[in-house]
């Protein structure tokens, strides 16, 4: 098992137009896009949405291979929705497989569902591919700040996210090291039945938990030693600023959303 290959958050370092956008812009853009993807009432709308997504992919300069990798986990979901939509939608029969009938309406629905799902996953993965985890949580914190009077602890949430994200690679590395060390003592993680395998993980889990608690303790001490007292009155080393391209992006998406809503109402 190669734990190193497991990358979560999947940030693809770069300096493309999309990388340079303010993280708040990108988070808002994802929100707008995920609404917009469900709005079109005809194929022109979907062509436009697909074009917008493809242009974003090109602007991100992320190799297409990484984008497609993000689609792999939803392949089965796509297959199931397609089959269900195709067979279970009533309407004019296109062709039949044995006793089951496939309708034109069903095929149309399948196509729409697939396009929506693919576009949704691609735009969402573009966010994490082009935004470093730190910037992402910074952006989220700023966006949530107006909700503070409602009792949303934006700083604490962002801090928890940052720490969690920060320690994922560390824990993976640690788990990898411990597994190797136990393998060097003849441990076998691959063979045996489920119970044997679960038992085989004890020599990995115990040291991993011990290490995590130790790390958490050290981190808390280090933060206190550096005067951390919560989010109140804290300033940022890197303050986020909107640039022209951020305004252009948001304006474009705003117009797109408005147009789609108008089309939907008109139809």
């Amino acid at each position, binding site marked *: 098992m190669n734990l*190193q290959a497991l990358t979560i958050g999947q940030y693809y370092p770069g300096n493309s137009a999309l990388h340079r956008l303010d993280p708040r812009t990108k988070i808002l853009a994802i929100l707008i896009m995920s609404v917009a993807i469900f709005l079109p009432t005809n194929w022109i709308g979907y062509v436009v949405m697909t074009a917008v997504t493809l242009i974003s992919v090109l602007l991100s300069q992320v190799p297409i291979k990484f984008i497609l990798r993000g689609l792999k986990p939803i392949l089965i979901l796509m297959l199931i929705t397609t089959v269900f939509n195709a067979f279970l939608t009533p309407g004019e029969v296109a062709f039949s497989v044995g006793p089951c009938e496939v309708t034109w309406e069903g095929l149309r629905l399948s196509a729409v569902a697939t396009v929506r799902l693919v576009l949704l996953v691609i735009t969402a993965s573009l966010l994490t591919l082009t935004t470093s985890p730190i910037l992402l949580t910074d952006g989220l914190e700023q966006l949530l700040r107006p909700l503070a009077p409602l009792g949303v602890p934006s700083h604490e949430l962002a801090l928890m996210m940052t720490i969690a994200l920060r320690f994922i690679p560390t824990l993976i590395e640690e788990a990898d090291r411990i597994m190797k060390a*136990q393998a*060097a003592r*003849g441990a076998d993680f691959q063979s045996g039945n489920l119970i044997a395998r679960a038992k085989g993980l004890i020599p990995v889990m115990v040291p991993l938990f011990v290490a995590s608690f130790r790390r958490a303790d050290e981190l808390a001490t280090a933060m206190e030693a550096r005067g951390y007292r919560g989010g109140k009155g804290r300033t940022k080393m890197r303050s986020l600023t909107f640039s022209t391209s951020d305004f252009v992006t948001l304006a474009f998406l705003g117009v797109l959303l408005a147009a789609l809503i108008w089309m939907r109402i008109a139809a």
Partner: protein
Amino acid sequence: MPITLRHVSHVYQPGTPFEWRALDDVSLEIPEGQFWGIIGATGSGKSTLIQHMNGLLKPTSGQVLVDGIDLASRGADLKQVRRKVGLVFQYPEHQLFAETIYEDVAFGPRNLKLDAAEVERRVLRAMELVGLDESFRSRSPFGLSGGQARRVALAGVLAMEPKVLILDEPTAGLDPRGREEILSLVSSFPKLGMTVVLVSHSMDDVAQLADHVVVMHRGRVHMQGTPADLFKRKEELEAIGLGVPAAAELVDRLRKRGWTLPDGIVTLDQAVHAILAAMGKGGAAR
């Protein structure tokens, strides 16, 4: 149990922006019964290198032969190899997990499917080797001192009774007394018939213990030879961020001030003898 590496290269995460060539065309031949030292700066490929020696990592290209068996070949029994080649990672006490020290040390032998009597014999022998008496048997491995915990972890590998023992920075993070204990323990392994590979940042330790030293730099074997030969090349070592043992440095500085001292001094004992000899001579001349 010789270990042979032929043109071994290892690339982490190939084909991604995180691609990293940790080993680049490394060829080594570690003969049976020798004590080898591996030195190099952080990130020079030392840890990657030793993980190839018991099949924890597979080379991206090249061959690793342990006792003539190619570890990458389909028929290679890695469990057998790991029983013969023991590997002690950095901070091995971080891998302790069982409720008692006995249980933890017994983990390896039990994985070898040995019978209870043999497991017990091996555990007790390993504990005795590292200097832990019977009173430790049912104590928890958590809550020991740093040096004690490390000795428990070492016992866990020794109980496998390996023919080759590879140690990655076995003295890191220990106090001087713990260091001394571990080093004297490690120096006793060749007498038990083990081939030893010691990865270390400490030139002094390597100079004192090793028969042969390999210097790693940027994933390549930069130099190798006996400590006496190698530590003569002070400038080359300093150029890649390493140095020479304190004793060699002292001799070098004395020489620069006009002392006449013999070549190849790398340990404290050798330096003391040479300096006393030189002083005695100087005194006689006066």
